[in-house]
């Protein structure tokens, strides 16, 4: 039975004791062959499966997930969605993603709770104000809704920040994207999974890929070996974030990526206190308040390669210090939980989106700490290449070839910290 979610449906099911809700998605046995197999049941993989079915009419699709869907970075990130990227190619991709997010609850019939409370990044020196002017002007020329704020504006919008005369980092101004906000991360996973499942996509959980088969003569991909048997396919999408180089190794090629642990933190739940996301590059901190009331925050990736989904203590101390320096009243708020995801960074901190060196294998990786906000656009572009073999117009700058061509899109130089 397919149920359209609505207030009415809630009422109807409440009256019958909530005993008849349909499954959000099925758990089918994998078939022997699919037109497209996507490895990675995170946001990007599930979104791509949905768009393959919805936009390209390709429904014989499997999404393979080694654990539970959304258990990787999609379910571990700090849920910020924004498009304040400096370089035009990045701004176009991420702004498209914000636009898709704005319509996503309706498209999926699943409330992803996009809370567009804005994101404010403060400037602590005249030099930083000048730098923000460069960014804001550039982003505005790319069509991103950015505004510069005076010190008085910042104080009005975020009165709880540290304006003490002796502050280590005084606040001299800021920049803001109003359309930025937070999204309930699990809802994105579940919403795409449910919608893709309705269109016929098989979501196969607890299915780890152990090998990738290629035709010895042509080199074309022919299938994947998994812990649940071999699955034949000629179109294979890889969307496994921090584990991308391992999959590439299985397929016989290499990727210019390194995996790091990126930590996130949440506090005990509080009544509403932060009504926007606030961020400071100097203090190495960004923080928002979730609808449940927890302060959700993050900082920089741990400074060495890691596949450990746990964070280091020095980085946690630095984030705590950044928070207390930024919002002194939060000194006696308490940390409830810290965790980490494995993020894959390329040299320029920009994604790799498009064809791989192996015919039939398509890449969606290298998002670093910024993959969550790109899920709808990344999934759409990924699906486009899986369906047509050609790069998506918004993804051309993010091809693997850019490294050989030294045509990097160095967003790290234009951004403060990852979030």
């Amino acid at each position, binding site marked *: 039975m397919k149920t359209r979610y609505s207030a009415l449906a809630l009422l109807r099911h409440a009256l019958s004791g909530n005993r008849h809700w349909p499954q959000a998605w099925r758990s089918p046995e994998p078939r022997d062959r699919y037109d497209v197999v996507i490895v990675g049941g995170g946001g990007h993989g599930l979104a791509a499966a949905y768009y393959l079915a919805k936009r390209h009419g390709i429904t014989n699709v499997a999404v393979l997930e080694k654990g539970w869907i959304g258990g990787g970075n999609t379910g571990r990130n700090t849920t910020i969605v924004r498009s304040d990227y400096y370089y035009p190619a990045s701004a176009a991709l991420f702004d498209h993603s914000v636009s898709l997010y704005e319509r996503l609850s309706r498209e999926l019939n699943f409330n992803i709770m996009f809370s567009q409370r804005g994101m404010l990044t403060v400037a602590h020196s005249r030099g930083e104000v000048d730098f923000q002017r460069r960014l804001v002007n550039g982003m505005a020329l790319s069509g991103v809704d950015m505004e510069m704020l005076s010190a008085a504006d910042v104080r009005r919008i975020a009165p709880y920040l540290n304006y003490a005369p002796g502050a280590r980092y005084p606040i001299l101004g800021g920049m803001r994207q109003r359309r930025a906000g937070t999204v309930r991360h699990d809802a994105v996973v579940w919403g795409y999974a449910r919608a893709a499942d309705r269109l016929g996509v098989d979501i196969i959980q607890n299915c780890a890929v152990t090998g990738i088969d290629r035709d010895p003569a042509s080199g074309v991909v022919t299938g994947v070996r998994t812990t649940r048997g071999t699955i034949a396919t000629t179109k294979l999408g890889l969307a496994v974030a921090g584990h991308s180089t391992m999959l590439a190794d299985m397929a016989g090629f290499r990727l210019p990526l390194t995996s790091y642990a990126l930590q996130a933190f949440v506090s005990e739940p509080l009544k509403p206190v932060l009504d926007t996301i606030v961020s400071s590059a100097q203090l190495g901190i960004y923080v928002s308040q979730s609808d449940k009331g927890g302060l959700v925050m993050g900082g920089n990736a741990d400074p060495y390669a890691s596949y450990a989904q746990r964070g280091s203590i020095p980085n946690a101390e630095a984030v705590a*210090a950044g928070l207390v320096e930024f919002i002194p009243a939060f000194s006696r708020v308490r940390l409830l939980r810290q965790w980490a995801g494995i993020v894959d960074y390329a040299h320029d901190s920009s994604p790799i989106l498009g064809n791989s060196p192996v015919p039939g294998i398509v890449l969606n990786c290298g998002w670093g700490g910024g993959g969550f906000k790109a899920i709808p656009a990344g999934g759409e572009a990924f699906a486009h290449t899986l369906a047509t073999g050609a790069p998506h117009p918004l993804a051309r700058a993010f091809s693997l070839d850019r490294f050989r061509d*030294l045509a990097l899109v160095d967003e790290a130089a234009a951004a403060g910290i990852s979030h």
Partner: protein
Amino acid sequence: MSGARIPDHPRASARALRFRFDGRELEGREGDTLAAALLANGVRLVARSFKYHRPRGIIGSGFSETNALVSVNGTPNLPATRVMLAAGLDVRSLNRWPSLAFDIGAVNGLLGGLLSAGFYYKTFIWPRWELFEAVIRRAAGLGRAPEGRDPGRYDSRAAACDVLVVGGGPAGRAAARSAAERGADVLLVADARGEPPHPAVRQLARTVALGVYDHTLVTAIEDVDAPGLRQRFWKIRANKIVLACGAFERPLLFENNDRPGVMLAGAVRDYIERHGVAPGRRAVFLVAEDSGLAAADVARAAGIETRVFDLREGYRPVRAIGGKSLRAVDVAGPEGTARIACDLVAMSGGWSPAVQLASQSGAGLRFEPGIGAFVSEHQCQTVRACGAARGVSGEAECGADGAAAGLWAAGGEDMPPAVMPVSAHVHPLPPPGVKAFVDFQTDVSTDDLRLATLENYRSVEHVKRYTVWGMGVDQGKLSAVNGVVALAALQGTEPGALGVTKFRPPFAPVAFGALAAGHGLGRLFHRWKQLPAHDWHVARGAEFEDYGWLRPTHYPLPGESIEAAAQREALAVRHGAGLIDSSSFGKIEFKGPEAGRFLDLMSVGSPSTIPVGRIRYNLLTDELGTLIDDGVVARLAEDHFLMTASSGHAERVFRWMEQWHQCEWPLDVVMQDVTGKWAVLTLAGPRARTVLDRAQCDIDTSAFPHNAMRQGHLAGAPVRIQRVSFTGEPSYEIAVAADRAEALAEWLMQCGAAEGLIPFGLEALDLLRLEKGYIHVGGDTDSRTQPADIGWGKGIARKQSDFVGKRSLLHAASSAPGREQLVGLQPVDARDVLPVGAHIIGGKTHPSQGIVTSSGFSPALRRGLSLALLEAGQSRMGEVLTVWSQGRKWQARVSPVCPFDPQGERLA
């Protein structure tokens, strides 16, 4: 009043402490926890739950308290069981309006079926989520955020030991004693106060271990509560860790199991024995494990009317009766269901080992049917659990197990397997349609788990996220095992196959302020550096800004703005002489037979060809060919060079040099960062030489050309003087031992008085260098700028040999058309000053075709001047372009980067 002090308990005669709960004046005793004091006063209703605002009381006596969260003196969400009573505490209940007894939010309870797990994913889509969100946000959250500065202070310490024992119960104390007896250096982290178990054991009392991190580092938080210090954050490095963290008692699942008055049996015993407080007068014990029988005996002995139902004999709780306080409980048994009047229900559902820290340390978790809970399995050689933390029950048995752990930790043989019962009582799930809570605080009931299962949210992580089970402040200490066991029953599988959700640090919530103490706040957050002559600048009236170093921006006259001061100071340098403190420039010395060769490998230019005594401008690139710094190289001797680096890049450049030298090119050269050793005072201006001549300098300035270096004495002090210029005026950068900086500055000012010498700051310097087109790498360049883009293409073409970045500069991308190149930009209206960060619009592929990187009003040329990065800029001299910033537009002409004294005649 259903709670009471037990008269003959020592606590009854302890000092009285007054405190307030929601405005009511109450009295407790010294030694009470807040929870004990509330119970002693007969307070039952303490809190409201998160979602349904159901009335809640105190359920436990320790870390697992999930209900009784309060705010204490403005600090929210503290479990009353973990707050030590102090005189004058202002305690308030949370999440209720208008009052705890009458809470409007309780209406949510009537909507139970509508507000089922994950209901918000299924609605609130039309017309806009934000309309509903505002209401939901207000309803969610627990306590109010604290305001103002934290009155508490925190500090941080590190410790190291052979053996760290976590837990001050029977197992932990035995482990610490046994390890210490064998000579190990033992640190015991204990929650309670008390004497150490052995004279050689170091003990941290009132301390809770929070997390286990890489390489056996354990963090812990110590409650100090001394004047001026609230808590101390510990980082403890151990060779071996013994986890004796105890166990959490499990509640039972039955209808209304959350009513105030329903408590854990162990907690009831704890209040009676430790605090001398009887939590009720008529108690019903519902017992699935022997410790519950013992607790009932304690209650009976304390004069509480006690009835016991052993679940192993076929009894089963059906529902609790009552609202804000308990009136009765229905118990089903072999003889039917009976309603038993009571004001206290004590549940004993078995004990779940506290495996949080073990799990963090990397141990696997295994479901042990004997105790109906998970135990840790330790593969590594550094961590062991013991006592109740690995499923052992009984005080003597835990002590023996702890002794075995201590023996292992001291280097003895490994621990024997834990002795546990064969099978635990399995408690049946309550039927659908009743409110039986698995997670009390977050209001997750067995029905919510049922719904998640129905909808195919099957992984424990999915269930947790869908229902918010285990997401409360207690992080599932009370609910994790009950939830897994319930889910296994619903899914028709074994708890062990499902596993538990990941346990993340910290074990108990910890204040950000305490965690921050390990990093440093205020000026310690990021240190800044002061110039050697800082106090002299202060005395001269300088204003400072933080550039990593605190540096003078200007020396304003009374009432003078920074802009006016900069104009005045710059003109003084152009027409007379100025003194600027350049001490923050990086200074790196290279010495050795291969110093020149090494510098050639590191530089875009060829420092090895610099004649002794001469200086040359130099660029550094990274392996991508991107500019990372500029500076000058002086040759002091055949084998001795001195390189300067930008202030902000100095440390990085030195590290860069060391890395290449040690890792790639181990040539015969030694290098040293001498930035802090030398202060540098720069005399600049047409009269600078005269000032220097008057200053008793033994260097012949008549034979001291631009781009040369001399060593000598000035007023008796050894100096190195470099003739280089960042102003376009003849300049003498005088380096002197840092401790003589103030004396030299004062001396130079005296000598220059007749020449009109003034001190000048960075604002004036910025105007002077702008007139000359001298760049700031990182400001006038970006992550793509290469030497050719700032007009240094010829230098690369000339140099045949390899250097860092050379191969990238040979790539076609380095000569691609449309690269952004450095140009001058002059507003058509000379009065305009373009904002830094303005963009040059009208590009072909994107509206922006460049950026203004530096800007100012030139005091010498009396017009606005800018530097810019412009697509193909070097071939576009004379073009008039539109500059845009924040909605405003200007017209500006592309011009050479150096409009003032382009031939450098003034430097001669």
